[in-house]
């Protein structure tokens, strides 16, 4: 049965060959590593799928999800900004120049702002510009400066773990994408709801339902501030003696 039609009829779409590792017995014949990762992937995707099956009843099965072939304008914009974001992130972790890595981080976090805007989360986008690009990256550049990081091309910015790190990164990406495609391929966002990320909406939620966590967070920020000052003071010894 066509999965979209199955979704519209309210029944679970039947499992098909692509990416349905729990139905694919040939995985068990692979070596232990592959079997282990397939098991993890199956377990994760089964959990996520069970959860999403209950969540999607309202959003997806009611309004039958459009096909991936009908690309909308917001999807095109999202993909373009997403490519910039991921590319800048890749350059940030592979650059051999520490200052350039920090500046690529600015591009990646700025791209994230664009993604938030496409997802209609306006307030989050503004706060992201203020705090990440304005404060965090400047703080990181300060960190590079005070640790006298050598400016310029450096051949030895990576540890000997690099091949392992590549394997872990690619495996994590593969597992995540397989599980996500399996679980959420019918989920569809409605971006036409008015003001769902506007400052007014988020402000009402933040100072209404979420005011206690918000206050706790401000205490935590104060504690972090005091901790940072206490850690970097020069006139107090390690044992608190002057």
């Amino acid at each position, binding site marked *: 049965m066509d999965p979209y039609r199955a979704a519209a009829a309210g029944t679970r779409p039947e499992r098909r060959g692509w990416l349905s590792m729990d139905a694919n017995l040939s995985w068990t014949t692979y070596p232990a590593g592959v079997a282990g990762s397939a098991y993890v992937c199956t377990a994760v995707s089964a959990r996520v799928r069970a959860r999403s099956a209950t969540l999607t009843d309202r*959003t997806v099965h009611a309004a039958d999800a459009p096909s991936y072939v009908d690309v909308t304008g*917001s999807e095109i914009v*999202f*993909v373009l900004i*997403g490519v910039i*974001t991921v590319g800048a*992130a*890749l350059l*940030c*972790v592979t650059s051999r120049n*520490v200052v350039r890595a920090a500046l690529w*981080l600015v591009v*990646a*976090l700025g791209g*994230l702002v664009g*993604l*938030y805007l496409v*997802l209609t*989360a306006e307030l*989050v986008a503004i*706060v992201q510009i203020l*705090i*990440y690009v304005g404060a*965090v990256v400047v*703080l*990181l550049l*300060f*960190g590079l400066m005070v*640790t006298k*990081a050598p400016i310029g091309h450096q051949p030895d910015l*990576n*540890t000997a773990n690099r091949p*392992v*790190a*590549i394997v872990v990164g*690619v495996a*994590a990406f593969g597992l*995540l994408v397989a599980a*996500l495609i399996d679980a*959420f*391929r019918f*989920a*569809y*966002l409605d*971006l036409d709801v008015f003001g*769902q*990320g506007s400052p007014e909406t*988020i402000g009402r*939620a*933040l100072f209404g*339902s*979420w005011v206690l966590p918000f206050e706790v967070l401000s205490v*935590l*920020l104060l504690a*972090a*501030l005091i*901790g*940072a000052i206490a*850690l*970097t003071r020069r006139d107090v010894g390690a044992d608190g003696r002057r």
Partner: protein
Amino acid sequence: MHLLYPLIVSAGLFSIGLYGLLARRNLVLVLMSVELMLGAVSLNLVAFDVWLTDALRSGQVLTLMVIALTAAEVGLGLAIVLQLFRQRATSSIDDLDTLAEPR
């Protein structure tokens, strides 16, 4: 928009951050990789919030909290890096092996 677009971008950012966390030698660069991973988590939170049209806006509110936590984390992390640099004159992870198993 299909939910998969933000989710896959977010998975990519997270994996890149994971790679940087394991592969980088300079402590400040490791902190930058943590930033990337936190950005991926925030994107996921926003995407799920918009998908579920939650009345409490929990995803976006939680994203704001993650951003504040990130500021605290970077401030403290850099204070620790600075203190390490003052005592050991290095910010390279390979040299900070006092607690490691003897080879």
